[in-house]
């Protein structure tokens, strides 16, 4: 299995991307379909797309795979949903962004900046007692940084949730998001809950 499974309940994290019309209420319609099945939206990222009037959404939801697949089909039925795809088993790239505000007295500032440099993250604000950094990557990278910063005193963590897209085809004529011919799905690297995201 290439996706994380919580054995007992059969719940899986699934990544769904969709293109939706930018109209009021569209988010409520979508979240309503997940709410109806009683499962959680682990993360949700929305923003305007390259096409005027349309937004892209990436959700990570937790539920039994066949139910998630059915909800995706029901999402597609919504008038304002132009496209929807469960891309969990596809070949995808994804990122997550977090802003971390950490207590940074002059005593510790040097050490924190060193960590920032090792993690290749940007420091975007420095105050008298705090420092805010911007970290992009997969969940593991962000979680590791948070763990390392914890002893300095984390003031706030703001995470965007996952944004994802299908990988471009490596071979002309192949579909986007296909796994390469040489490597089977089994061996290919697909995202899991704690993945680094930087394949």
């Amino acid at each position, binding site marked *: 299995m290439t996706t994380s499974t919580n054995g007992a309940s059969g719940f899986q994290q699934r990544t769904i991307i969709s*293109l*939706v019309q930018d109209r009021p*209420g569209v988010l409520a319609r979508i979240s309503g379909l997940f709410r109806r099945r009683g499962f959680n939206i682990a993360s949700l990222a929305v923003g305007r797309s390259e096409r005027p009037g349309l937004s892209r959404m990436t959700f990570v939801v937790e539920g039994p795979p066949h139910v998630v697949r*059915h909800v995706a*089909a*029901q999402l*597609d039925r*919504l008038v304002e949903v*132009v*496209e929807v795809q469960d891309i969990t088993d596809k070949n995808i790239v994804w990122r997550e962004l977090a802003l971390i505000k950490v207590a940074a007295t002059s005593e510790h500032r040097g050490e924190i900046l060193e960590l920032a440099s090792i993690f290749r993250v940007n420091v975007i604000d420095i105050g008298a007692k705090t420092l805010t950094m911007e970290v992009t990557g997969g969940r593991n990278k962000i979680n590791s940084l948070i763990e390392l910063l914890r002893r300095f005193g984390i003031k706030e963590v703001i995470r965007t949730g996952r944004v994802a897209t299908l990988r471009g085809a490596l071979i002309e004529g192949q579909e986007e998001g296909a796994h390469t011919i040489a490597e089977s799905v089994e061996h290919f690297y697909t995202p899991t809950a704690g993945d680094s995201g930087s394949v």
Partner: protein
Amino acid sequence: MVAKTLTGGQIVCEALLNEGVDVVFGLPGGAILPFYGELSKYPQLRHVLVRHEQGGAHAADGYSRSTGKVGVVCATSGPGATNLITGLATAMMDSAPVVAITGQVGRAAIGTDAFQETDITGATLPVTKHNYLVMRAQDIGPTIHEAFHIARTGRPGPVLIDIPKDVFQETAEYDSERDSQINLPGYRVPSTAEEEEVEEAVDLINAAERPVILAGHGVIISRAFDELRELAEKAEIPVVTTLLGISGFPEDHRLFVGFPGMHGLAYASLALEEADLIVAIGSRFDDRIVGDPNRFATKAKKIHIDIDPAEINKSLVVDAPVVGDVKAVLGQINPKVVKTDHTDWVARVEHLKAEHPSLKIRETDELLGQHVIKALSDVTKGDAIICTGVGQHQMWAAQHYRFTNANSWFSSGGLGTMGYEVPSAIGAQLGNPDRLVWSICGDGGFQMTSMELATAVENNLPVKYAILNNNHLGMITQWQGLFYEGDYQAETYSANPDFVKLAEAYGMKGIRVTSQEQLESAIKEANEHDGPVIVDFVIEKVDNVYPMIPAGQSIQELIEESL
């Protein structure tokens, strides 16, 4: 057409006319009064004043199912709008095209808990196919045209349009040509299916030895009566109709089997069980048919023809999904099906009918619900429009009325709404003034919407109401008897009104029937009366509907009546 400057209320009326609307069911209130102020200037739009908004929604539903046109209901903000919800949910579950127009409090007051304010677009999200809050008069025209398009195309369903009071009063330009352009990039209406899917289905049909067609509501919605018959006859396939597929196939046809499932005919369920192929056409493998999905028709491969891709593999994993409009898909499949006989299999199904006589009524001098339906069917020659509520009377009606006319059965199959029978019959009669409409009611459901009798009288609608009156919530009594160790609770109606007097109080004719001997003459008398009638059929107090397959079970747990 030249653009006209109109008030929002006028735009609603003009757009409704352009959509071919001639009847609007409704009940006014403060927030929608500006619309009513304009409605009076459009006599082509007949307004039918209902007594409760739920009745308006069911009437619009009955009108739409019986005519194929979109039914329209309007209501005011707050309680008017919330009263629509049961009607909208009923239409949603049974894919009936209804457009609801609700007044909303003025724009400035929205979100302030103003008098009679409800967030009705929020409240109706899960029970509508789509809904709108229109915040500018200029958007009313395009919204109404889009709403009608969504309501009637694809898998039909209810659409609600919420319009604030001051938007009705604001002026804007309306141009019917411009405003009826549909631009919905996310809304696809399937018609024909992929050739590959058709081929796979055809191969299974041609290879089958014991095929059964399971014909659902989609056959009726798509008006695919001729195509269904052609397929059945060409490949000699017995036809099982679902509860809402009833009247989609002539019941006097030699290949007609009946409806299966929880209270379906035993031989229909057994035909599905013994089949090696089920061709489900516009049916969603409802849980009342499937029961336990792991034990349903395990010997059969399954073809699933449906317009809604979200129905495929929902309840059951199928072998050959075919996504498309039923009429169009059968048009693709039929020419490729090889003309063949299934003589032995058809004989086997006939044998099942003889072995399991589910329609046989037990010998008794008492008046049973089945006697009433059988007599109605005989006297009307299966030619009436039948509306029902939900419960024992509904199941007896589904079993014993032998429909000879297509699209004549209107019942709340999905939501199971008691009370649907009274107003839906009003809508069906309005849409079919030349047909005989019988509403078959239980005494429970009848009293949920009986205030609409006034609507029937006021509009001279000669609906015949047959109350199967047993002073009980019959199905509740049956379940408490079978599954709750006879612990009877809240199942008896000990203070029913005198329904004959009630009829008279409304200015209707009232007839009481207490014995089998009176059935025929009473039904004839009702048919001949030029106006609405209540016939109070006083039936056996406690009786069960058989056959029965308990919820979530399979044909192995079939309970049949010992005769």
